[in-house]
């Protein structure tokens, strides 16, 4: 029983830690999105996130529509971390029209050539931490 409680505690701590990583990163992702709000983009009220080790990647699938324009904005609260985001179409071809320099905040612009599924791939290029929390939001118009 004690072992079970201990395991549950560990699991809860791990979940809380992961959540904290993302919550901290989220404000940075919104900060990355701020310039596009001023340009008439609408930022979705959801966000996606997690934590990754250096050189690790996570893909987020999104349904994008031709005719819209999107900015995918990525942020982390880890000082000196360098993250990148790139968006690929369903065939794995790079679909980004504009890419900001990788960093603590970064973003890519996507003008889909076709309506369909796209993959936003988040990469932690450098980080002083073993695990780096990240959050991704996107804006559209």
């Amino acid at each position, binding site marked *: 029983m004690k072992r079970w409680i201990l395991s549950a505690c560990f699991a809860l701590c*791990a*979940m809380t830690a*992961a*959540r904290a990583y*993302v*919550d901290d990163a*989220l404000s940075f992702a*919104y900060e990355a999105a701020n310039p596009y709000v001023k340009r008439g983009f*609408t*930022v*979705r*009220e*959801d*966000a*996606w*996130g*997690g*934590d*990754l*080790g250096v*050189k*690790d*990647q*996570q*893909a*987020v*699938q*999104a*349904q*994008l*529509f*031709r*005719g*819209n324009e999107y900015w995918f904005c990525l942020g982390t609260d880890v000082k000196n971390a360098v993250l*990148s985001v*790139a968006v*690929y179409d*369903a*065939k*794995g*071809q*790079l679909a*980004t029209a504009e*890419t*900001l*320099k*990788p960093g603590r905040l*970064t973003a*890519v612009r996507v003008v889909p050539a*076709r*309506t*369909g*599924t796209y*993959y936003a*791939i988040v*990469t932690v290029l450098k980080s002083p931490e073993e695990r780096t929390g990240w*959050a991704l939001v*996107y804006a*559209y*118009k």
Partner: protein
Amino acid sequence: MQQTPILKIPTLTWPALAVALVVSAVHPLQANPSPDSVDLAAFPAQSIDEVIVPVPSEVFAVLDKLGSPNWRAEIRESLGQQSGNRAQVALLLGTVIAEGFVAVEAEDPEKVKEIGRRVLTLSKAINVEKAVLERSKSITEKAEVKEWDAVRREFDGALQDVKGAMQELGDEDLAQLVSVGGWIRGTSVLTSIIRKNYTPDAAELLNQPALLDFFSKKLDTLSNKRLAADTQVVRVRKLLASLRPLIEAPEGYAVPLENVQRIHKLTNDLVNQISTREA
């Protein structure tokens, strides 16, 4: 800006970066050395999150650019009747929120206000009224002064808030039904417009196979067995299966008109079934 809870918190990693990336060239204009192509099949499944469901505004933003359809003709007179069945109420709530977008496009303040009130009533029936109370008020206020973009954002927000509240209550399954209900009504409207003035550009909006697969997977794996066996849920599952071959267009082709018409009939029939008390 309001922040809603993070939807996904994946902690899985993908250490074999170099193995999966097929680097063909580095884009010369980018500061970011992302490869021009990647082998998505080499990505471990756990490193790919489920598809992000677009908010209705994203679809309507494209429709805005495609012309000026007769939105008033698309508004349903009745917003449906609710039964005591939670699955039916959740699906109906999704369709009513989608109807809100149609009323916004039609710039019909009275209908928008009626829909705002109906969203509140349906939310109350499934115990998430508090989550949308402010949204409902805001919808009414902004419809009154015809701030249509703001009303749209409130409907987007209402959908997210309802789903978020359901997830907090442990009703993840019901939250999925709200999403699916909204998608079905949205697709019914979209196909109605496309079939009346068919263009390949407009029909391309229907190319959503990953989204359809996502909804099918969610409904196939509902944790609440009683909900999974519900007549309405079974109908929705059948609908999604029958839409799958109709909705995907090969590269360079749009969904053909006959498929658009078929999709419209199937989704419209189901919206009508969801909207009846006997559902």
